[in-house]
């Protein structure tokens, strides 16, 4: 399905009443939101509020237990990861999971060979250069430092040519210069039409890159809008800082 056929008013992703249970615990409890092509949506909330679970369900690691996931006009709930990748959904991991014994270039080549969802062949060398990994291309991924592994994880995701990219705490551990570069990179992706879902604890970064945020608590959204309004929302403040009488 080409980008041209998407009208601007139609969301790329529509999540409705999404439920994910682990035993009796509802990690996602009737979560609903939508994401437009080219939009950067921030997903914030306290630890355990369901942000990563949401990405895990969207990327096929867990099947949903309820609700619907509509992507580019089709239901995608419960599809396997590789099928979702071929449809144009990809993600990065909070803790990067590169193929440690393969070289940096091979890590990206696998994704370019098997995961392409749109466009022609991926420019692996160009992608590595743009993420400052070109000097490491022939080294095993195990020899990279943690920031480089995060960039490699991003390169692996980008090599598939995603239309929806979920970014899970990419900014944690980056220095200010690296943060600026990653923010610029994500904005450039959005301008090219990619929809991004960004999970992050660094509010400065969220403020810098996102168009809109959703605040999650206990598996469902308690606020939707721009970050500046979120910090004035009584319920959001309560969730993050506690109430006056709560002790």
């Amino acid at each position, binding site marked *: 399905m080409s980008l041209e056929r998407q009208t601007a008013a139609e969301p790329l992703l529509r999540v409705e009443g999404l439920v994910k249970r682990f035993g009796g615990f509802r990690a996602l409890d009737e979560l609903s939101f939508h994401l437009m092509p080219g939009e950067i949506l921030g997903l914030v909330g306290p630890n355990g509020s369901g942000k990563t679970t949401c990405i895990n369900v969207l*990327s*096929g*690691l867990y099947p949903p237990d309820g609700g619907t996931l509509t992507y580019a006009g089709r239901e995608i709930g419960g599809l*396997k*990861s*590789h099928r979702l*990748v*071929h449809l144009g959904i*990809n*993600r990065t*991991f909070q803790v990067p*999971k*590169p*193929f*440690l*014994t*393969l070289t940096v270039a*091979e*890590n990206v*080549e*696998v*994704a370019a*060979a*098997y*995961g*392409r*969802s749109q466009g022609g062949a991926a420019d692996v060398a160009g992608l590595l250069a743009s993420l400052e990994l070109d000097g490491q291309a022939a080294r095993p991924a195990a020899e990279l430092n943690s920031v480089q592994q995060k960039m490699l*994880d991003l390169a*692996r*995701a980008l*090599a*598939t040519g995603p239309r929806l990219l979920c970014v899970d705490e990419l900014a944690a551990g980056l220095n200010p210069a690296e943060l600026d570069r990653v923010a610029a990179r994500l904005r450039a992706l959005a301008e090219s039409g990619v929809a991004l879902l960004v999970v992050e604890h660094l509010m400065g970064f969220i403020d810098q890159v996102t168009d809109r945020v959703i605040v999650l608590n206990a598996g469902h959204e308690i606020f939707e809008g721009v970050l500046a309004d979120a910090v004035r929302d009584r319920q959001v403040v309560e969730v993050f800082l506690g109430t006056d009488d709560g002790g």
Partner: protein
Amino acid sequence: MPKALAHTLFVLVPVVAAAAFLPFAYSNQLLLFNFVVFLTLAQGVNVIYGFTGYLPFGYAGFFGTGAYGFSLAVIHLHLSPIPALAAGAAAALLLGLLLTPLLRLSGAYFAIANLAASLAVFQVVSNPNLEGITKGPYGISLSGVFSPNLSYGVAVVFLAATLGLIVFLRNSRFGLALQAIREDAISAGMAGVNVVRGRVLAWLMSAVIAGLIGGVFAWYVSVFYPETVFSPEFSIFAIVFALFGGIATLTGPILGVVILYGVYNAIGISTPQYFQLIYGLLIVGLVLFLPNGLVSLFRRWGIDVP
């Protein structure tokens, strides 16, 4: 020169040529045959363990199943040896398909379950109540098709085919995808690799390799007992040889077999009283100093190993 061609010309062709022509210069054909069997088995282990990451501790189950598939096709269906080899491979393939649910396990759990499955097949085959079908514990005798030279030649052909498969895995997208699965199945999925299909294909290829060479083994020796072909020694030797040389490479398992099986036979003949001591020291030394096999030594020096 493309790497695959270089690997074929400088590794596959010399090894196959040596296996094919050594019997004309060296009279102990049985020993050479055992080398061919272990070269093939070690590469079969390489497919599922080296490239895909599952340690097949019951690999002998496929070898024995191939041997019995071949033998029973000769005895009951009166097939000639070549079609009977296909029957042996089909039997191993069937066992592989039956055992695909084991791929849900990982690490030691998979290894133990695979060992148990292999022992289960052995117990069924050697059950005295099945004497009419499998000859039970009394063993197989195939004197009618006995043909050492022809069966040796066929074994060399299977070795060549197996090495060809490893050259392909070493130089193809598919081999890279299998290694990605081995390293991290979740990331492999997010790279667009169909993880379940990759694992099952590698498992079945590995099973068929053992089934084919097991069938030739039955043909070559012609007289054997269930404990001969289901011996855990086949699993352990094949795994140790592959590990010793270095997995996920073409040359590693070859080096492992030539060196370790060579030493095994040399000491076994000259000074059998020291055999276990020397063998043990060799393996302990390797595990301590070169856990990734001999080829990792060359890698450390910056040499790209096929």
